[in-house]
């Protein structure tokens, strides 16, 4: 299956101002949210591991733009962006980061473990690659129930070397499961660059061995991601089984907050920021296309900043979970209704 180079250029002319502004707003929300999370981490309000999504915003925003109501998503521990993009409340996400009662998991999950049944967000998983069979399982459930929903299963270039990914590819294709495998190739598995972890750098092609079609996508171009996402969804929804998107992206920050990032140069990061930044890209499209003025965009910046500040305030003010929460949610007591 040939890689279809995303048709971003041609798509641009058809994109409405409204859509572009939407992408801009959502990507900006993720970036500002993550910057704030980094700040709160530095202040000691967020503990443990905290993996920021800065630089990768176009991936989730593009794919969410392609998704429909009822489609599912599941990802790894670098999950804040996915939650914001699928419409989860920034307050609840931030309060989970600070380990407070108002968090999505009542403070019991933390940065890596958040869920929202309402938004069909199935986590938030801390073991590299473990979400891949889980995502295929969600797709299995939809197929079993006979609906046409699709599950986005996100994982990184690091997880792409895990054995369970290939066990899952095999079964997903064997059983025609409606799952889009999204490899967020941000070039580094913690401190190990893709070049140092595999000699077959085109990761989507590994699916060919199992009969799964796929393509490489420019993950710094939200429109290209959306277009590719639509192709993938169409394939899955029509009952043809899984599809792989290898989205080339870049993470500006360290693997987690405690990563000194000595494995790459400052210049490398700066170059991507200067030349390929996904938010700057949309900003440019908006300005050159005369869809918005500098003032319009400033107003959006201000609005987003307010949302993030509100989330941070909430996350600081929300009380720590009551001590008896230690002992709840270990076992479900309610026997579910028959399907």
């Amino acid at each position, binding site marked *: 299956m040939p890689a279809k180079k995303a048709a971003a250029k041609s798509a641009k002319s058809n994109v409405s101002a409204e859509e572009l502004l939407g992408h801009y707003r959502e990507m900006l929300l993720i970036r500002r949210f993550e910057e704030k999370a980094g700040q709160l981490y530095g202040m000691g309000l967020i503990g443990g591991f905290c993996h920021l999504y800065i630089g990768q915003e176009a991936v989730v925003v593009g794919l969410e733009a392609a998704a429909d109501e009822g489609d599912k998503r599941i990802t790894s521990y670098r999950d804040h962006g996915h939650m914001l993009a699928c419409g989860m409340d920034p307050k609840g996400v931030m309060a989970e980061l600070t380990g407070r009662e108002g968090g999505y998991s009542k403070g019991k999950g933390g940065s890596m473990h958040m869920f929202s049944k309402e938004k069909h967000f199935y986590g938030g998983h801390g073991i590299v690659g*473990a979400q891949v069979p*889980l995502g295929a*399982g969600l797709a299995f459930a939809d197929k079993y129930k006979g609906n046409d929903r699709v599950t986005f299963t996100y994982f990184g270039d690091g997880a792409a070397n895990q054995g369970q990914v290939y066990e899952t590819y095999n079964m997903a294709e064997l059983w025609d499961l409606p799952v889009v495998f999204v490899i967020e190739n941000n070039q580094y598995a913690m401190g190990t660059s893709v070049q140092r972890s595999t000699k077959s750098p085109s990761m989507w092609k590994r699916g060919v061995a199992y009969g799964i079609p796929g393509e490489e996508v420019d993950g710094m171009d939200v429109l290209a991601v959306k277009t590719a996402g639509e192709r993938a969804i169409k394939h899955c929804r029509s009952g043809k089984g899984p599809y792989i998107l290898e989205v080339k992206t870049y993470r500006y920050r360290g693997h987690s907050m405690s990563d000194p990032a000595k494995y790459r140069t400052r210049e490398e990061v700066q170059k991507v920021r200067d030349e390929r930044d996904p938010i700057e890209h949309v900003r440019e499209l908006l300005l050159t296309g005369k869809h918005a003025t500098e003032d319009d965009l400033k107003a959006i910046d201000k609005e987003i900043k307010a949302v993030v500040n509100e989330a941070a305030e909430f996350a600081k003010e929300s009380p720590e979970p009551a001590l008896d929460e230690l002992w709840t949610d270990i076992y479900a007591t309610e026997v579910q209704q028959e399907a």
Partner: protein
Amino acid sequence: MATEILMPALSPTMEEGTLAKWLIKEGDTVSSGDIMAEIETDKATMEFEAVDEGIVGKLLVAEGTEGVKVNDVIAILVEDGEDVPTGTGESKAEPAPAPAAEPTPEPAAAAPATPAADTSPDWDADVELKQTTVREALRDAMAEEMRRDEAVFLMGEEVAEYQGAYKISQGLLDEFGAKRVIDTPITEHGFAGIGVGAAFGGLKPIVEFMTFNFAMQAIDQIINSAAKTLYMSGGQMGAQMVFRGPNGAAARVGAQHSQDYSAWYMQIPGLKVAIPYSAADAKGLLKSAIRDPNPVIFLENEILYGKSFEVPILDDFTIPFGKAKIERAGSDVTIVSFGIGLTYALEAAEKLAEDGINAEVINLRTLRPMDTETILASVRKTNRCVTVEEGWPQGSVGGYISSVIMQQAFDYLDAPVITCTGKDVPMPYAANLEKHALLTSDEVVKACKDVTYR
């Protein structure tokens, strides 16, 4: 020279089988590789090939004969012109090298002296009973629950077309179809994860592991994904599902296929752990496991699969989790066990009774939740306790039980608790070594005599 054809052992745990069909007759010439007979084990019908050449002199076992012991002479081959020697055909069978199983359980009827007041709480006295193997009981439980609830499905290696590697899922594919009885490739890690994801998505999977030894490939998904998600999500979503399959030693299958995982899974908050002994346990507990809204580890035992027990004929027979069964009431010592450990415990209790020691035997049935109340109540009465399991000693189930007793009934103890376990070694292959590595009822008897100072 005449050659004796012996009843073959066609599985590691086979002790006897049915000679379903002869494909040769007296006077036929057979050569190596010819199929001579069809033999039915408790798991499958197998073709039995000739190894030697010769003329069929005599068929000693009629077609359709059940319960033919492994190593019984079933036919005689002679050479051309030779007569069938006299005096052949008598069983020369040495006892099967497999660890001797307990005598076919003679249910309650043959029950001994001790009062049975609180020993049979699972069904009313007037309920009709049916002799059922553990294997059939497990199948019946799954079939009943699949009829009851569309969201329940079975997945695993060889569960569908092969009818189950141990024949547990026999007939399920026919009744429920390939959508609900699903053969997987040999990828435990992957299909366990897909099962957990399907549970997150609202289905109620039964994930069969061909044995729990192979579930080690999948243990991350069992513990990190299935057991912990309810907690990590603040109660939003969990995994209603069952992981089941044979656990512990079978017979002569060596170190990598002979491990008891009871103590491992018992340790994990978020999991429930059931481990049936009898067919009634198997049926009642598995039905409860499938309905339980949590992930349940269901530890079966290959040696018990073929054993028959009485199962009540009821439309909907379930056994609640966390309720131990007193298999035998007694006053001198409490023996606590679970799963196949009960065979040693009950055998030991019989032997002890001959020496005038009345043992109370407790079948835990679920290890998490564990019915420690029943253990403690018994220990307060007998003042002595012996635990029995096939697993290893360090970090054992018995070790946990003895700590509970020490902390909650210390003043009642007249002797230290003794934990009878498998030996602290990987399982050896050699028959004599394997026998020593496993537990024996004599060891349980000795432990009971030690704690009763007899």
